[in-house]
């Protein structure tokens, strides 16, 4: 990696994740030293916990759990900090951008969490095949070792590149046993473990924020975003835009303003918000702030920071059908309702898009959505159910045309949503 040609040092009030130097010397020159404990580890841990509490940072891996609460639960000690850089959402690139352009910021966040929890190791998970990311990290870790910058040992590990491999229980289990499968956890309050040690799994973006908040203080973080959901947030914008990619915006920025930055090439008919297991949002809600507290009111969430803009000419039902088929193939294959239900839902949606519904189709599809929801070990089926439900709502006009037997004219065209070929896991 070459150090990125970077803006001059930022004043502390200007909080941002992206755009800092990639190399360790530049990183430290721009952002200052990492505030690790000198002597009293316990008091220092209390300080970090208070800073994170005051910042209001919540996890950026999809669940949105308050980071300070997660840290507080983990302070019993002796765990392993797991940096979740799996980013298995095909439409998301934010973690790749973070890990390749500001790896030290993410690793610093992991070091801080490790110090506060008394963790013995930092494991950075990058999926097999994503070698560019793993190489950038290995280079960064070598720099840190050479300059004795990291107190807790840092290692890159390579779980399989499967959609559900990044789910935190699947990650902990793969590290412990080599099996990349989500676990059934009826009580999510029970901590994840790797053997006897606690697994402290954090998303890469969350840790980058921790690395900045510890340096600049919670007020710097709170100077961005909205009071209910402070800070900046990384969003990967794709679809009908000229400049797809990752943007850093204030939490609470209206959806349409985020998409506008990526130069739409078409009138936008809908946005898929949160990820491939996210929610379709129609034009009446394009001014909705990108914050979970607002998105919740329309059944959506910020998810993993994804917006896919769909051109107005595209058929949302056809796109959703193809997406549902893709997602059906991405399960772990463990739970019956997901194994059987997702392909059945995808097939119903395909029949609808092709304009050849049987008389029972709508009723059957709605029943299947209800039956599958909440019945997997992980949330993979729930994401698909939510996506399909929102499609039926937002593309209601397409649905009724297809119900009358009109096939989707774009059915044989290339999909607008990027769907990778199955990597086989």
């Amino acid at each position, binding site marked *: 990696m070459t150090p990125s040609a970077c803006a001059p040092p930022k004043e502390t009030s200007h909080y941002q994740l992206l755009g800092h130097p990639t190399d360790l010397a530049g990183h430290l020159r721009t952002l200052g030293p990492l505030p690790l404990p000198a002597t009293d580890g316990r008091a220092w841990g209390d300080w970090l916990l208070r800073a994170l509490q005051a910042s209001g940072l919540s996890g950026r891996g999809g669940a949105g759990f308050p980071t300070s609460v997660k840290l507080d639960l983990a302070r019993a000690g002796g765990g392993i900090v797991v940096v979740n850089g799996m980013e298995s959402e095909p439409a998301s690139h934010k973690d790749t951008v973070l890990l390749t352009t500001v790896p030290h910021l993410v690793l610093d966040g992991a070091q801080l969490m490790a110090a506060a929890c008394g963790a013995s190791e930092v494991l950075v998970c990058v999926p097999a095949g994503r070698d560019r990311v793993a190489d950038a990290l290995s280079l960064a870790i070598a720099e840190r070792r050479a300059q004795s910058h990291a107190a807790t040992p840092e290692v890159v590990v390579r779980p399989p590149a499967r959609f559900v491999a990044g789910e935190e229980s699947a990650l902990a289990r793969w590290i412990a046993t080599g099996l990349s*499968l989500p*676990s*059934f956890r*009826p009580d999510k309050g029970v901590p994840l473990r790797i053997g006897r040690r606690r697994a402290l799994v954090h998303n890469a973006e969350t840790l980058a924020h921790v690395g900045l908040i510890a340096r600049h203080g919670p007020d710097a973080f709170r100077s961005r975003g909205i009071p209910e959901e402070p800070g900046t947030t990384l969003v990967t914008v794709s679809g009908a835009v000229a400049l797809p990619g990752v943007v850093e915006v204030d939490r609470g920025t209206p959806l349409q303003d985020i998409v506008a930055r990526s130069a739409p090439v078409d009138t936008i008919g809908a946005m898929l918000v949160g990820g491939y297991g996210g929610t379709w949002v129609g034009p009446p809600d394009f001014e909705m702030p990108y914050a979970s507290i607002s998105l919740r009111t329309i059944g959506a969430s910020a998810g993993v920071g994804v917006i896919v803009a769909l051109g107005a000419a595209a058929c949302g039902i056809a796109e959703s059908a193809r997406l549902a088929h893709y997602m059906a193939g991405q399960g772990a294959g*463990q*739970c*019956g*309702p*997901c194994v*059987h*239900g997702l392909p059945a839902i995808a097939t119903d949606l395909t029949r609808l898009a092709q304009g050849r519904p049987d008389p029972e189709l709508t009723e059957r599809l709605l029943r*299947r959505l209800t*039956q599958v929801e909440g*019945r*997997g*070990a992980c949330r993979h089926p729930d994401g698909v159910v939510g996506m399909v439900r929102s499609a039926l709502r937002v593309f209601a006009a397409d649905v009724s045309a297809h119900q009358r037997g009109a096939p989707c004219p774009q059915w044989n065209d290339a999909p607008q949503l990027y769907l990778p070929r199955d990597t086989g896991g």
Partner: protein
Amino acid sequence: MIRITIDPVACDAYGYCAELLPEAISLDEWGYPIVNGAPLPPGLVAAAKRAARDCPRRAITLREKKGGS
């Protein structure tokens, strides 16, 4: 209040539970059990325990749910 939990990873759709406890468990179209969320009446606890014991996959757990809400 007793709550029935089914481990979806362990479950292989034998369907015995729905036979033994039809008041609380039905099967979806693929044969996998759906637990209705209603509180389990005291008179059905024995049948629920039998369903849990007889599940070939040991997928059923009965838990005491605190608060009852």
